[in-house]
């Protein structure tokens, strides 16, 4: 089943130099495990392909029901150098929430995860 992160997680993002970080937090405790399993470093790197110029690091914080992603080369140089509207990476959070992941039907249904709908 296709599941959009917007429907199963919330997020906040910020910057350190030319790197944006996105903390991705499960909306329900039981959704942390599938998020940790299916929101892989590769999936996030593919999602941001063409948006960032560097690699992606991924960390797990099960205690906070959260993953932390570092998106390198995300901010056009970062800080004062950047010409971007979002020079400080404040809204990479919701950009990540656009990601749709594939979760086996049985697992998604058992955890009452909402299926992705067409996005407006």
């Amino acid at each position: 089943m296709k599941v959009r992160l917007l429907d199963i997680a919330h997020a906040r993002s910020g910057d350190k130099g030319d790197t944006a970080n996105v903390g991705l937090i499960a909306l329900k405790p039981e959704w942390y495990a599938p998020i940790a399993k299916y929101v892989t470093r590769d999936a996030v790197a593919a999602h941001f392909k063409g948006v960032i110029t560097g690699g992606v690091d991924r960390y797990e914080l099960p205690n906070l029901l959260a993953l932390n992603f570092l998106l390198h080369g995300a901010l056009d140089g970062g800080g004062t150098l950047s010409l971007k509207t979002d020079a400080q990476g404040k809204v990479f959070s919701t950009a990540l929430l656009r990601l749709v992941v594939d979760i086996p039907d049985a697992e998604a249904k058992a955890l009452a995860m909402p299926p992705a709908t067409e996005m407006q």
Partner: protein
Amino acid sequence: MSAKKIVRVAGAQGFWGDWLEAPRRQAEGGPVDYLMLDYLAEVTMSILQKQKERDPNAGYARDFVGAMESVLGGVADRGIKVIANAGGVNPEACAAAVLEMAKARGAAGKLRVGVVTGDNLLPRIDELLAAGHELKNMDTGEPLSVVRDRVIAANAYIGSVPIVEALTKGANVVITGRSTDTALTMAPLRYEFGWKADDWNTLAAGIIAGHIIECGAQASGGNCLYEWRSIENLADVGYPIVEGNADGSFVVTKHPNTGGRVSVQTVTEQLVYEMGDPHAYITPDVVADFTSIRLEADGPNRVRVFGIRGKPATDKLKVSIAYRSGYKAVGSLVYAWPDALEKAQLADRVLRERLDRLGLKFEQVLSEFVGANATHGPLAGPDAGKHAPEVQYRIGVRDADKKKVERFSREIVPLVLNGPPSVTGFAGGRPKTEEIVAYWPALIDKTVVQTKVTVLQ
């Protein structure tokens, strides 16, 4: 002292520019022991350094004098203490301005202002380089010599030790320069509970308490995505307060009868903000482990935080170096329905062709279409902005040559009459050309930096 001592540290400013009402509301809305005001972002020191070059009595966060005035009664008569990194590159001048304000308000002698200095490495840079400290860029590995002649500020991030020293010497207001944001909260907890330099777990807990409240209302409902529609009364938002215990555990809360929300979700969003490797949040005092943090709801607008572990500090301090790095200008125009995005895209092609014909090449040119792709780029999808009632065309350039950037800034407004139709939103005229002050993070041996504490009255 009661059997169980609780120390209340209230976050009252999250950056220079934060809500002017917040310090007074934190001082008056309920019991607090300390007000913590964080003024310094990465580039703030360089702005302050430029101000000090023009005026030797400037170079600190002037907002702080007004903030002190707004809480003067609480500090002078009710025993509230204040910790702030408002000193910027001139903590002494900041202290003098605060004392002068207190005198004018009839509170002479009521303030004992502890001034922390020693973080400013600008006068020592050549000496440090000569002694073999390379001050390499932590991100790129380049040696500082690459930009040495363009450096305008250099400050070591200092920790809790000199703030604790100032409190021990009787200060009720502590003004620092470039201390870490988190030390401003950890230091008063460390002072009150007598935590030792190797009490790694409690020191780490104090640092995490600081991380939670260092961005003001971002921990108490501000900028919170989780169930944001249901967060009540943001107009009256309560800033976060830490109620610290001797064992390092603490509760995050806010004053009664204020807006916003303190919940596990609002605190979690702030915890992950600007996070790097969660296993190693490195500070001058301790390395905190964010994977050890436990959160639990403790009644309405109360979150208990416990279980935090820390590891020994490193032998380095981070240094924030600012250097001149060319110029930039960003301009914009607004195109209206119908076909707003298409018109804005045509404007972009026309402008770029004109820049080409002028022979203007820049280190960087960035075009964005606000309403279509400015925040999420291609992730917004191929149809993003196609039916938007208006689209803002925003273009910026960056270059070492100021003249080229200035020339660019004259090419935008003419499009109003000689480009695509249905254009407005040019009231600002030509965009201004700004000098870029860039940030160079480095490390230095701790032994090199000697802080000094003076208490003024």
